[in-house]
């Protein structure tokens, strides 16, 4: 039912206004990315200007190293998500279809590891990684991302498996299918949309992760978070370049995020809000 009273129109206008205020910093970054450095750094901001792709060119050119960091971000986010799913799917499968007395405990324990603050495990992980040569190493970072997202993946995949009737597993079992066959041929096709959205959410979280990247990597395995953070010392000099690099980093995730909104609520609240 649409509200066409004055109050209703005002509320709608307020909603638009608030949405614009929330989005404005992102819009401002987007606009700045299309400016020249001179246009970006002015006392009176320029709202109208001739857009240029120069800053993107500068941000992407060989010397900037952008592509090196972007590649690290892509590899760590994608591989950590895939490894995470590879471990989470069998675990969720066992818990959803073959629950034992300990299943509830195991599941809640898995979820609870998400609530250990990263600083609580930072120091030993840093020291052990140093010993093993895993500092500033893409494998080491990727495994950390996997651990970071595992509780979420196990939980989400579990909750999607729970929506599938158990009879299907039992029927396949009677037909003589092995566990692996049942999982691959019967359950996975049914749960695929759910698994994909869990993976999407893990991908977004890994891409945006900055605590572990900032503390555990320096250059070789550094991700875009570390690259963007390096602009913090070059204050006020390269706003257009900084914005262009930021836009390239943030834009794909904002687009993916829009698709993942619903699943995000389900995943991040661990099923507490549906």
């Amino acid at each position, binding site marked *: *039912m649409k*509200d066409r009273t004055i109050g*209703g129109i005002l509320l*709608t206008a307020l909603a638009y206004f608030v949405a614009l205020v*929330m*989005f404005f*910093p992102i819009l*401002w970054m987007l606009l700045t990315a299309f400016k020249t450095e001179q246009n970006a750094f002015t006392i*009176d*901001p320029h709202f109208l200007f001739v857009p240029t792709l120069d800053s993107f060119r500068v941000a992407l050119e060989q010397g900037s190293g952008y592509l090196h960091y972007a590649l690290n971000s892509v590899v760590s986010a994608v591989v950590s998500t895939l490894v995470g799913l590879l471990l989470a799917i*069998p675990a969720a499968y*066992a818990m959803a279809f*073959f*629950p*034992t007395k300990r299943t*509830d405990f195991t599941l*809640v324990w*898995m*979820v609870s590891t998400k609530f250990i*603050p*990263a*600083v*609580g*495990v*930072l*120091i*030993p992980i840093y020291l*052990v990684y140093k010993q093993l040569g895993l500092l500033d190493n893409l494998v080491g970072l990727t495994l950390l991302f*996997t*651990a970071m997202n*595992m509780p979420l993946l*196990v939980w989400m995949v579990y909750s999607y498996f*729970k929506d599938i009737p*158990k*009879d299907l597993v*039992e029927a396949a*079992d009677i037909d003589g299918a092995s*566990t692996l066959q049942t999982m691959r041929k019967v359950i996975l096709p049914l749960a695929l949309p759910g698994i994909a959205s869990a993976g999407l959410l893990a991908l977004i979280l890994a891409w*945006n992760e900055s*605590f572990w990247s*900032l503390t555990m990597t320096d250059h070789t395995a550094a991700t875009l978070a570390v690259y*963007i*953070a390096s*602009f913090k010392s070059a204050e*006020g000099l390269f706003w257009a370049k*900084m*914005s262009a690099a930021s836009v390239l*980093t*943030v834009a794909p*995730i*904002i687009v993916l*995020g*829009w698709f993942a909104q619903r699943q995000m*609520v389900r995943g991040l*609240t*661990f*099923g*507490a*809000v*549906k």
Partner: protein
Amino acid sequence: MSSPAVAVPSRSKPAASKAKANLSGAPVRRLLAPAVIFMFVWMIVPLVMTLYYAFRRYNLMMPDVTGFAGITNFKLMFIDPTFWDSLINTLVLVGASLVITVSVGLGLAILFNRTFVGRGVARTLAIAPFFVMPVVTGLIWKNMLFHPVYGLLAWVFRHLGLNPIDWLAQYPMLSIIIMVSWEWIPFALLILLTGLQSLPEDQIEAVRLDGANRWQEFRHIVVPHLGQVLYVVVMLESIFFLTSFAEIYTTTSGGPGTATTNLPYYIYQSAFFQYDIGISSAAAIGAVILANIFSIFLIRFVAGNLNAGSRR
């Protein structure tokens, strides 16, 4: 507790017991083990090591000084004024950001729960900040919005005839709170909106027919229903706000002085700049305990939900 196990046999007893016979033992454990072992190695082992270090003399600059330290690290931590500053800063950051994100998020959720033209677009724009990398958030706000001369807020203030504020120098904690809130209002909005959309419409119709006004409707129908959702938002956000790091790292580096040093930043500094593993581990244990205060309630809630879900 064991309702899932009970529910199966009642549906198809022979098949279930056969499946049980085939799969209850080793194969199921084999499916579960990799994930459990992985989480154990990456989270629980380091946590125990942190606890161990907290009771050791361990400074990377003084490799000869080792051994059991008793509670010395905790004593040193407790007489360090920076620790207390960081603890207070953490609580201020968590408390203020909670109040802002939950109240603004609730307001927005109510605003976006109406049907109007372009609602999807408006909601999508409002949610976008949540997907911005925290490092980017820090730099964009620090430079392009908060900058005392070239920032957009300075321009706005000048136009309103006010003196521009050097946000990060004059109001460092407020600036951090603004940035964190900007990132997390969308989270509160999204979850509260989901909660609102599952409101019992028939009940609202009923009280409207009984002549309840908007406030009464809000007070007696919306609030109780949303109570649970709010609880989850508050708990989750508390845990995430406790560990804020990137926003501080990229803007104030914990300063000026210790004005924006929170517990994670304090731990980071004592480990990576003072090389004192003992004290930073003691502080890390403090952070874990603080997070646990919130997560115990949340975990209990999740666990309760689990059983409610399987009874359905």
